[in-house]
């Protein structure tokens, strides 16, 4: 497996949708290619960081205000 081939299936590796027979090939490639190993690990970590840290928090008072507005309008719409 070449680095280009690895990159083409990187998403499948991350999303764990890899056929069993390809898995051994990937592992062999990663064992000898430090660059691809770094790319895989740091891409995984990238996703994890964005998943675990909310960038756009809704302040409680904004949420409450919007909520009241939405519900008022919904009740009127009935």
């Amino acid at each position, binding site marked *: 497996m070449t680095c280009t081939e690895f990159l083409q299936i990187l998403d499948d590796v991350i999303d764990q949708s890899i056929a069993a027979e390809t898995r051994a090939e990937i592992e062999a490639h990663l064992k000898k290619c430090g660059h691809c190993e770094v*790319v895989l690990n740091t891409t995984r970590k*990238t996703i994890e960081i964005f998943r675990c840290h909310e960038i756009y928090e809704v302040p409680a008072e904004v949420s409450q205000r919007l909520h009241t507005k939405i*519900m008022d309008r919904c009740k009127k719409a009935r």
Partner: protein
Amino acid sequence: MSTIQPIAGTDEQHPDVALVARVRGGDVAAYDTLVHKYERQIFRIAQHITQNREDAEDVMQDAFLKAYEKLDQFQGNSKFYTWLVRIAVNESLMRLRKRRTGKLVSMDEDVQTDEGSVPRDFADWAPNPEQNYTQSELAEILKKTIQGLPQGFRVVFVLRDVDGLSTEETAETLGLSVPAVKSRLLRARLQLRERLTRYFGRRAPAIAQANAASGGDGAEA
């Protein structure tokens, strides 16, 4: 005669199905539950598209109201959440169009770029690199990093990786093909990784800062 198939999904019905049925039956409180459940996600996606807090608040309000009014049109062959997100995405694009005084805005903007499709920076990251920053510093870094992506990549990444929609659901929500979602997702992930390496890579901070300041990747194609 025994070949009648049960309606798909009846075995493990999504909890939203019952809530939607209650709303249709006139139970406004059930809609309250749905708003509570999804307000954070809808606000997030609106922020990522409009990049403007005021617009995002308006989008959130309008999307939930529109969904309520159009609930009779909701077919139930997709999840309530993906249907709601689709409304929010359209509302967000409309807002953006208004701000740009009618200029056409689409999900295809700026995606014709090869920038960042090949990794360049192979510096490994320190373990838990985010711990080297305060919460607010980290939020700034993540904001700056993701705002630098073309909109069409950013939205795919947020729906697929942050919200956890499937590739098919993301495609359906954005009106894109599955291969288009896949290609955008890979490039979004790689570009974000490359940009975060400037902050999290194991190297002297001075070098990292100089790289970040000079615009970093894409300089030498």
